[in-house]
């Protein structure tokens, strides 16, 4: 394999892995901040116990999210130096701002929160977790603004002398319609994951025999309802914001929209296929289940709207950008688009069923199938966000910066394939090991249950969870 292919695989592996940890960091920091606020307002010790319970889980997750993020920042220069050289003037700005405005805030105040329980006044201590949570979400905005520029470049010009992109408007870059649409989608998807984790944790405890779950049974029933509500609300919001993105995509990247449906020829109205068996290489569809009008509705809000086909867009691009192949790899875009939507909807459906089963203080029997599904259901939104990123990044191909710079022109000219093989092996092995350890620690932490009142009642001594 060439340096290009290897670097693409490495970027894919490290990015997908990074984003396993990011959403839970975004969601749990907010959940913990809300729980701690509730404790200060209502003085109910149960809220403090939950703050510490989810806080511990948050820290295990946060550690991995941070270290895998450093790899991504370095990787642009290491593996994609031609890209970095070309876009640095534009793309570097949001990354540098992320460091200075968001990441400093996130890590400094998190350090204060972990170690400041006995050193800060309760209100000041509460402020630190809120600042860390705000820093986390702000950080996501800058990164998404950088990514949005790759999907829909604005506020720049290409200097004819240096052949490099130059920033002409930072305001345009930071208010890119693509960034404004993708941040809420990513934010709500993060809450969806957080809700599913909360549900799974509660379900595991509620399934235990009565004497073991003990007094915390009532607490976990409340936690379960909380998780179910977060998940359902987040699923609806993720769907709505995703829908907004779909229409933007149709106007900004019509090829991606067509590739999402594997729609080869322009149709109006266009139907949406739930499932297709087609020839992988060819433009031939053998068998499919279709919903009439749906694709037109998603792409244009009009059931009779026109959706451009891959072949039509390809002809237009050849005229505009010169001879070449402008199609992404269709099987990946087609299936990742469906899996993203499908997994997200299943997570929402699970929450809806759960809320129905627990309506008006009803109890779900301990042996219920629902708990078993709810525990394993935690993987659904993770698979959804992973599919979503694979879709949006693979759907942009063959471009790194849509319409401006191709992926094959972006790779580092001086890096040998053997170097990338070494780095990919190191990252993959290291990440796999860390995933196993972090996963086990998280499960162990959840199984240990909510810290007892006595543990949280002695403010003099730092809890083991909150020191190293």
């Amino acid at each position, binding site marked *: 394999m060439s340096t290009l292919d290897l670097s693409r695989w490495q970027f894919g592996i490290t990015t997908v892995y990074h984003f396993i940890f990011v959403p839970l960091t975004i969601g749990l920091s907010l959940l913990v901040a809300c729980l701690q606020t509730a404790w200060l307002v209502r003085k109910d010790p149960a809220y403090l116990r939950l703050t510490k319970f989810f806080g511990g889980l948050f820290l295990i997750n946060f550690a991995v999210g941070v270290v895998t993020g450093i790899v991504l920042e370095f990787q*642009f220069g290491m593996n994609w130096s031609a890209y970095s050289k070309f876009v640095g003037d534009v793309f570097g700005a949001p990354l*540098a701002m992320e460091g200075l405005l968001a*990441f*400093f805030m996130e890590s400094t105040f998190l350090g*204060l929160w*972990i170690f400041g329980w006995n050193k800060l006044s309760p209100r000041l201590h509460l402020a630190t977790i809120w600042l860390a949570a705000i820093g986390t979400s702000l950080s996501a905005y800058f990164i998404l603004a950088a990514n949005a520029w790759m999907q829909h470049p604005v506020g720049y010009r290409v200097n004819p002398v240096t052949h490099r992109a130059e920033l002409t408007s930072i305001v345009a870059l930071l208010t890119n319609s693509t960034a404004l649409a993708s941040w809420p989608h990513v934010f709500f998807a993060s809450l969806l994951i957080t809700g599913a984790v909360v549900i799974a944790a509660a379900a595991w405890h509620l399934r235990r025999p009565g004497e073991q779950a003990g007094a915390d049974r009532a607490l976990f029933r409340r936690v379960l309802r909380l998780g179910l509500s977060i998940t359902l609300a987040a699923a609806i919001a993720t769907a709505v914001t995703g829908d907004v993105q779909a229409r933007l995509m149709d106007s900004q990247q019509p090829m991606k929209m067509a590739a999402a449906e594997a729609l080869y020829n322009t149709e109006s109205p266009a139907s949406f296929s739930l499932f297709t068996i087609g020839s992988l290489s060819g433009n031939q569809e053998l068998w499919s289940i279709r919903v009439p009008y749906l694709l037109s509705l998603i792409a244009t809000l009009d059931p009779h709207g026109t959706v451009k086909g891959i072949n039509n867009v390809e002809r237009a691009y050849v005229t505009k950008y010169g001879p070449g192949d402008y199609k992404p790899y269709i099987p990946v875009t087609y299936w990742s688009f469906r899996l993203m939507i499908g997994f997200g909807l299943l997570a929402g459906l699970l929450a809806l069923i759960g809320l129905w089963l627990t309506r008006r203080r009803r109890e779900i029997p301990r042996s219920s199938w629902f708990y078993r599904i709810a525990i394993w259901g935690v993987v659904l939104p993770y698979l959804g966000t992973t599919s979503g990123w694979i879709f949006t990044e693979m759907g942009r191909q063959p471009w790194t910066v849509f319409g401006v710079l191709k992926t094959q022109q972006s790779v580092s000219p001086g890096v040998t394939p053997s170097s990338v093989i070494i780095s990919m092996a190191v*990252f993959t092995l290291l990440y796999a090991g860390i995933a196993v350890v972090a996963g086990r620690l998280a499960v162990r932490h959840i199984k240990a249950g909510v810290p007892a009142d006595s543990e949280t009642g002695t403010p003099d001594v730092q809890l083991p969870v909150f020191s190293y």
Partner: protein
Amino acid sequence: MSLAAFWFVIIAVLWIGYFILEGFDFGVGILLPVLGRDNASRRLMINAIGPVWDGNEVWLLTAGGATFAAFPLWYASLFSGFYLALLLILAALILRNVAFEFRGKVDDRRWRACWDAAIFAGSLVPALLWGVAFANIVRGVPLNAAHVYTGNLLTLLNWYGLLGGLVTLSLFTLHGAIFLALKTDGPLRERARRLAVAIALAAVPLAAAFLAVSQVGHGKPWTDVTAALAAVALLAGTAAAFRGREGWAFLGTAATLLLAVVTLFGDLYPHVLPSSTAARYGLTVANASSSHYTLTVMTWVALVFTPVVLAYQGWTYWVFRKRLTHADLGDQVTPEATGSTGGTGEPGTTAATVGR
């Protein structure tokens, strides 16, 4: 001063912040197997840097981001050229950071020993390699006409690069030992202070030799002055450590790191990455920088937000200014210590208890 030159200064400032701050937490990690004789003292060491190491590391991320934004060509040539060296640094940082978070999560001796080893190696490797990297940047590396690095990992491991590596390694270790003497109490404080003086015996000649060679090869009149001041600060810091004045000692090693980075960046200017193949292939502040507009925007962002960051990071150090004792961690070092568990404790009594 041009905006590009101003950003060269900003990036130097970010590296100074990174070396002074993460320098001591690397040092603490390196000294973990040396000074941490039992789990209680190892916990004390790790918790002394606990609230701050993560914020310290953001200086590196911001330095990387700022280089990307202000000098895209420098970022591109440097990061792709130093590919395997950076891979080693990244792998080390990953292991070290998860180790801090994971080590206390399972109460098992072998588990902790594993993560202690990761903290040690994860601190040692970057402490060495940052020096190797900076020495090579000053010295110049093989770059072709397209500013693409044409060497390999071994190219970087020349004697000047390795000397630079030993300098950062010994300076960070010294800085870390003094930090521990400043932030802990009891026997650990005393052992850290005495070890600091011993490390200085290696750090002083190494740093002096490296700065002298750098000045002979790449020096300017004004950087001769900063290099000499760096040596003075190092000697003064060592003397303060010897006399038990830990605060002054810490200021001394911090000033040494500051002046050493100023000297290296001063020697480098106006280049950012000289080419050893042909001088004209090298990258300079002028030919590697971003457009005027980007630099203007980033200047405003930096001028507004850097003071804010400095203020809240400074406040963090103020909040955790007290010496850390076993009592703070709720560690029951001996059965007698149980009674003194709680609050910040009396440093004197705790020290006596631990000493038994």
